[in-house]
């Protein structure tokens, strides 16, 4: 990407914004213009609301948007995972019907993968889709579904063939969440929040044209969705920043982001809030205690080393060196850091660790750390699964013998 090209693109988008950006438009009106021009998602194909530009160009273009405080397309939540999956595996009908309304923010999406009976073993899904000659009829339960209670569509992984090994019998569908057979219940967590839902699906229908990719290709398609999930996490942090600007279009955007981000508001606490440790230790005077100091030091060493390990992985990547083991360790490291941080916060708080809400330390924030950290070693791949991945892919150790490689109908599974 030469400087010449970068400058030309920057000039082009600047001119377009000058011509078109209007804070007086409604959010949907404006985003339709973005979709038509291709400036909302410039890295997407020209045929589908993009401009075929390299991803590396995006920050340059975002800079121009920021310059005039122009709002971007809807990006928060599961919708971008849906878009990426449809772009890669969907047909033209899917692209035509869904992509624009994803970008405008008119539709909200959710991901129907995990189930009560299959957590770590995602491919063991037992929600079934049977073709009745006209439609796919879906029955089963999904769990940990963020935003399902206000989603218009769901990315559904369902079993369509029980006679083949488990990964081969899954098919990927787009499910209309607003139909009668879809029943959404919020799941209250041990920390009092209800960020996820359980979705009961009873004789819900999916028309044949809303199958994504081939029958039996569901696992491969789901891998695309999951691959984008991690990448999306970084982007979400960026989106969290509030423009703070007055005006109707900004209000609309703020409301949209707030709704999508609501389930994630305790996430900093589940990571352990290492940033609060020294401040709390000084305020409470516990910094004077030698054994507390030892535990704080262990935490700071672990947390900083994890940060430097991520920096090493990035530096090697930027130099085009082969990825070393340091790139695969982040999740497990973060889990260890969170657990140590929870212990340190308890040590620092003493008896105050007994109290929560307005009676608790920092208005209940510390209590929220203590009861949220257990999630960090489970969500997004348990510590045990992470250790398996590290041992098998980084250290090249053998897999455990499997008991689920035959036809799925014969595989022992949970009785729901």
């Amino acid at each position, binding site marked *: 990407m030469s400087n010449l090209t970068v400058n030309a693109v920057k000039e082009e988008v600047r001119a377009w914004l000058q011509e078109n950006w209007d804070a007086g438009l409604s959010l949907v009106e404006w985003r339709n213009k973005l979709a038509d021009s291709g400036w909302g998602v410039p890295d997407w194909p020209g045929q589908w609301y993009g401009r075929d530009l390299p991803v590396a160009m995006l920050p340059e273009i975002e800079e121009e948007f920021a310059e005039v405080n122009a709002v971007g397309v809807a990006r928060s939540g599961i919708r971008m995972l849906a878009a990426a999956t449809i772009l890669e595996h969907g047909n033209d009908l899917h692209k035509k019907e869904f992509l624009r309304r994803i970008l405008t923010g008119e539709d909200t999406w959710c991901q129907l993968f995990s189930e009560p009976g299959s957590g770590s073993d995602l491919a063991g899904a037992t929600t079934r889709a049977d073709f009745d000659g006209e439609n796919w009829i879906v029955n089963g339960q999904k769990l940990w579904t963020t935003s399902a209670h206000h989603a218009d569509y769901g990315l559904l992984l369902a079993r369509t063939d029980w006679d083949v090994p488990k990964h081969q019998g899954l098919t990927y569908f787009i499910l209309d969440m607003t139909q009668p057979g879809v029943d959404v219940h919020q799941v209250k967590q041990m920390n009092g929040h209800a960020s996820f839902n359980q979705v009961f699906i009873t004789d819900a229908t999916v028309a044949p044209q809303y199958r994504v990719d081939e029958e039996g290709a569901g696992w491969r398609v789901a891998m695309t969705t999951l691959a984008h999930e991690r990448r999306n996490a970084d982007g979400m942090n960026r989106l969290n920043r509030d423009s703070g600007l007055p005006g109707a279009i900004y209000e609309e955007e703020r409301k949209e982001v707030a709704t999508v981000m609501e389930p994630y508001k305790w996430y900093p606490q589940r990571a352990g809030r290492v940033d609060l440790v020294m401040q709390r230790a000084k305020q409470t005077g516990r910094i004077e205690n030698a054994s507390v100091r030892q535990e704080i*030091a262990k935490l700071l060493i672990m947390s900083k080393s994890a940060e*430097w*390990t991520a920096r090493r992985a990035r530096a090697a990547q*930027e130099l085009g060196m082969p990825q070393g083991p340091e790139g695969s360790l982040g999740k497990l490291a973060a889990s260890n850091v969170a657990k140590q941080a929870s212990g340190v916060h308890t040590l620092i708080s003493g008896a105050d660790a007994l109290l929560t809400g307005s009676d608790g330390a920092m208005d209940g924030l510390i209590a929220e750390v203590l009861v949220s950290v257990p999630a960090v070693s489970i969500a997004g791949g348990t510590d045990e699964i992470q250790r398996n991945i590290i041992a098998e892919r980084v*250290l090249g150790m053998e897999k*455990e013998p499997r008991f689920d490689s035959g036809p799925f109908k014969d595989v022992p599974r949970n009785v729901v």
Partner: protein
Amino acid sequence: MQFAFTEEQHQFKDVVKRFLREKSPTTEVRRLMETDDGFDPVVWKQLSDELALPSLIVPENYGGAGFGFVELSIVMEEMGHSLLCAPYFSSVVLAANAILNVGTEKQKLDLLPQIASGSIRATLAVTESSGRWNAAAVELVAETDGDEFTLQGEKCFVVDGHTAGKIVVVARLEGSEGDDGISFFVVDGDAPGLTKSLLKTVDPTRKLARLEFNSVQAEPLGEPGAGMGALTKTLDQAAIALSNEMIGGAQYLMDSTVEYSKVRMQFGRVIGSFQAIKHRCADMLLLLELAKSAAYRAAAALDEGDESVPVLANMAKSAASDAYIQIAADSIQIHGGIGFTWDQDTHLWFKRAKSSEVFLGDPAYHRELMMQRWGEGI
């Protein structure tokens, strides 16, 4: 901030690695650890003449190669990996740095070229029988009579103290206490009044000596009484270098243990296919890589003149000590009964892990010091 080795540093690492794998197989380690001197003069000469390793961090105007701590750490990592038995840590890491930190220009011009060429082997004597690594614990007294200084007292845990040709001694001026009066001196290894005795060490690959100073005439290194800053700096540098040596040893254990788990059969399958073993190995790798990051970060910070060096030194030493001994214990565990035998090599690294954990202060000591130095963070 440097977070990746350069191409040149990778090449340098390869050269050092090849040399050490050839010169320091475990058969040699086992031979040398049974000797009193604890090193092979032929290999020492080769690593001095062919690779010029003792000259590495000595500036060019003192006859050195003028490289930095990142390069020194690369050498230390490889030496730790191969468990090299040689007076490199004592002569280069401890003595040369101390002289660089405290010596006068004339002393540097006199002493450093000899250390850089490998023709003399020096060491640094700080700790005494109290086993404490801070200035306040120094009791050995430098008595003065005009311009002449004589040392009175004893030093303990002196690396290669029984074989070094020059000994840099940390002493205190008469009547001083705490951080005051800290002074550096140089004495010859065969100075009259100096009695050297080899200690029986848990780790036979790193030799330690007790030195008794009975009115030993000594030349002040730098200005007597003004050595506190240099002592702190030298110990921080040494902790960082030792941390890098430790992660090299831990890497060896990690690799050899994973390899063993892939061939050892029990219950009809390789033990490395059991999650109980795999998860232990994954945890070992995490410990190792985090400690490596801290050790690398600290070494780079030294070269970058980062003001956080003291804190980073404590973090690196604590992380490397904990990681190395845990990985060593896990390695023995995964090897099972054979890992507890003398003929299997794991115990050689386990013992180095144990000696490194304690040398220059144990992890708890470094964590406490780190907290005292933390300030507004790093």
